[in-house]
């Protein structure tokens, strides 16, 4: 197939770019993702997951079953930030720190932790 064929339509990554990443030592979908942005777009690899795995399999002569899917992440579908922020009335504890807050605490990081 022509090397310029698009594989990841969200980020417009083609076969050549994926093969180059593999040539540079990438072995998993996630390796390729970090090098090329393949699978990082709005669909989060839902479409290109298996085409990319097939390219890795062919290029590295590895059985398809030995090539794991990319790390699938939350949120399972895109969600508006506002919808994410609403719904939990009060956070019992917060893990959010403040850049400013840290700088004025004389390096005492313990105060920023909530575990």
């Amino acid at each position, binding site marked *: 197939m022509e090397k310029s064929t698009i594989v990841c339509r969200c980020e417009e990554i083609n076969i050549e770019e994926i093969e180059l990443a593999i040539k540079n030592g990438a072995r998993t979908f996630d390796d390729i993702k970090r090098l090329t942005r393949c699978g990082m777009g709005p669909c989060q690899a839902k479409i290109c997951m298996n085409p990319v795995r097939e390219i890795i399999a062919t290029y590295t002569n590895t059985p398809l079953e030995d090539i794991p899917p990319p790390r699938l992440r939350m949120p399972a579908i895109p969600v508006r930030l506002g919808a994410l922020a609403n719904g*939990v009335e009060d956070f019992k504890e917060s893990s959010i720190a403040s850049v400013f807050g840290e700088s004025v605490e004389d390096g005492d990081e313990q105060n920023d932790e909530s575990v």
Partner: protein
Amino acid sequence: MEADVLIVGAGPAGISAALTAEKFGAKVILIDESFSPGGQLRQQTQYFSNLPTGYAPDIGLKVIETLIKHLYASSVQVYTNHTMIGAYKNGMIGVTDGNKTFPILARANILAPGAQEEAKIFPGWTLPGVMTAGAAQILINRESVLPGKRAVMIGTNNFAFTVAKQLHDCGVTIEAFIEEKSQITCSDGILRDELKHVPVWTESTVQIAQGTGQVERVSVHTPEGRKEIDVDLICISNGFTPILEPFVIMDCELTYKKHLGGWVPLYNEKLQTTNPSCFIAGNAAGITDLGPILLTGEIAAISALEEIGILNSEEAEIERRKRWLELEKLENTAVCQARKNLIASSRSRQSPLTKSK
């Protein structure tokens, strides 16, 4: 929100699970991301005869209509436009309705997200007018929109023939089937016969789809040389693969089973995943037909109820075995065998059904 059982996905498997769990006395919440329950069965106009006891053979959208009627007559709380997007630290499933995001507290979860169609790449596959067979089916059967006038179908599996036939019935000219393998893979003789006027190009692959702003032409590499035809629709039927996101979010282990559609969550004969609070049903547990899909919903519900003590183990075992026996009769042999292998491999895991962080 609280329930005994939370079911994610209101396709045939999810509804079947919900009705079964409710029948045995559980408080059930059923969520689905769509505006309506029914899942992909809502656009299936083909006839299904291989159904479990208690189901009358009918076309897909009638089967689901009946199920939905039962669902709304039951005590199951149905939330449409509710999507599982993640999980909380304590293992509770998080759901959004588009305005807020909140946990649903359930003693057991049944995940039935279904399957998605496999893409197929070739030069020009991103042009408008190139779509999956399932997308074309939604357009004609649900939206009443004709996706094109002259089409080729890539793939010759049962779904390819099903959709080609439906397109043909809507007046779309199917110019050809394009098949990589040396023969047609569709096992349905009647369907094949109904479309016998359509040429099938075996050992053939799409070289390129071309057009300005929309597909206009497709070139196909065939054993007889290059063939080029004018089309405005290219349908891809490259099979289905289980939707994995909800399972990964819930820390369920995955395994690879080609005959079940590729990567699939690992589960035991109770349809329990490696996260003991999560059960699996439907196409997510392996791509199969409607009959087995409905039965996995029932089995998952029975197991979930056993897990939380609503059913005792003996009752559950009897109910489960009945359904597994029926499932074996209805399911394609290769799929059923792959399922058995998967269940056997879950048994041989070193620390069965417990997973460290």
